[in-house]
């Protein structure tokens, strides 16, 4: 199938967001918006997400990847970023996809790592959207701890070897000081947004979920925290296709890694759901 690729700037409040759209040249059977990982994890996973976007386009999906305000090649400053601004960026991206392909084409949100934390804000507006989750982070606190650890480890590796504890760093943020972690400015406003953000889907949500966990020793069962959340979603009557893939943690590995099995299995899960729809309905009937 011929794939068309379009690079453009999407105007948002105060800046332009860098976007790449990949789609089959003929008929689009579903639209996908990527919800990117955070900071370094986003950079490390670029090669993988680009490959996956091409693979999804090759099986009929129109896939949009956007660099959020202050991130990647988009305008604005990272220090000015908030979850409200990023949610607005993503809603505008959904509008673009729907204008391009019509409002009746099924919408997928494809969240990687911290990107999954943005999904609840979007499904609040589009409750029938379906979710493709790659190693989702389940709370913003988890992400904030990770960033503070990285900052603390950088001090430990520095010339003096003096380490600032993560609790001291957290207090500095709370006191209104911006911190720089791996070249990204984390403002007190963003930190407080993160602390409140969890992967909690609104009750109105009616979509399908394909949930992937990846690891070098992936045994078939997702890790305990994910397992708990998946059980809760299933008890709420939602259909969750859970798959564990053996492969490298490409979002965090030192070298740029790829995990083809994750792409293949994601395409398979999404094609199955597109064709057969919600298995939940079958269960209820």
């Amino acid at each position, binding site marked *: 199938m011929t794939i068309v690729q379009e690079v453009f700037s999407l105007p948002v409040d105060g800046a332009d967001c860098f976007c790449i759209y990949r789609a089959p040249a003929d008929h689009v059977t579903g639209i996908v918006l990527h919800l990117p990982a955070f900071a370094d994890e986003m950079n490390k996973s670029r090669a993988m997400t680009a490959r996956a976007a091409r693979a999804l386009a090759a099986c009929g999906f129109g896939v949009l990847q956007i660099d959020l305000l202050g991130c990647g090649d988009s305008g604005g400053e990272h220090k000015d970023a908030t979850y409200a601004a990023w949610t607005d960026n993503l809603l505008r991206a959904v509008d673009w996809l729907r204008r391009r392909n019509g409002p009746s084409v099924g919408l997928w949100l494809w969240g990687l790592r911290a990107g999954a934390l943005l999904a609840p804000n979007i499904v609040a507006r589009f409750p029938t959207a379906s979710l493709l989750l790659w190693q989702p982070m389940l709370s913003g606190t988890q992400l904030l701890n990770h960033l503070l650890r990285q900052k603390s480890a950088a001090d*430990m590796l520095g010339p003096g*070897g003096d380490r600032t504890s993560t*609790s001291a760093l957290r207090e500095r943020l709370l006191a209104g000081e911006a911190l720089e972690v791996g070249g990204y400015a984390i403002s007190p406003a963003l930190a407080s947004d993160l602390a409140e953000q969890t992967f909690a889907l609104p009750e109105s949500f009616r979509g399908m979920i394909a949930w992937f966990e990846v690891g070098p*020793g992936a045994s078939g069962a997702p890790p305990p925290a994910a397992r708990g959340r998946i059980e809760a979603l299933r008890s709420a009557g939602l259909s969750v296709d859970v798959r564990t893939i053996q492969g490298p*943690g490409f979002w965090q*590995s*030192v070298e740029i890694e790829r995990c083809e099995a994750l792409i293949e299995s994601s395409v398979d899960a999404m094609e199955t759901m597109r064709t057969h729809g919600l298995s939940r309905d079958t269960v209820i009937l």
Partner: protein
Amino acid sequence: MNTRNQVLSVLDDVLSLKGRAAGFRDDMPLLGSLPELDSMAVASVLASLEERFGITIDDDDIDGSTFATVGSLVRYVNGKTGA
């Protein structure tokens, strides 16, 4: 898989060592000796250990000595899992 092998598997994955970690001895120095172990990698190793072993790591417990060698990191994880 025992703790030591699981710790080596986490290091191998995060640091992209392509199987080299399997040959690491307990006295193999980590911090300051493995160029791959930068600040993001330290944070990712901690997160992967938490996930793999279902433990919670208190950051105030962690300092350079935890990451001094393979042996010191395995001892730390064993202390958390009670093994």
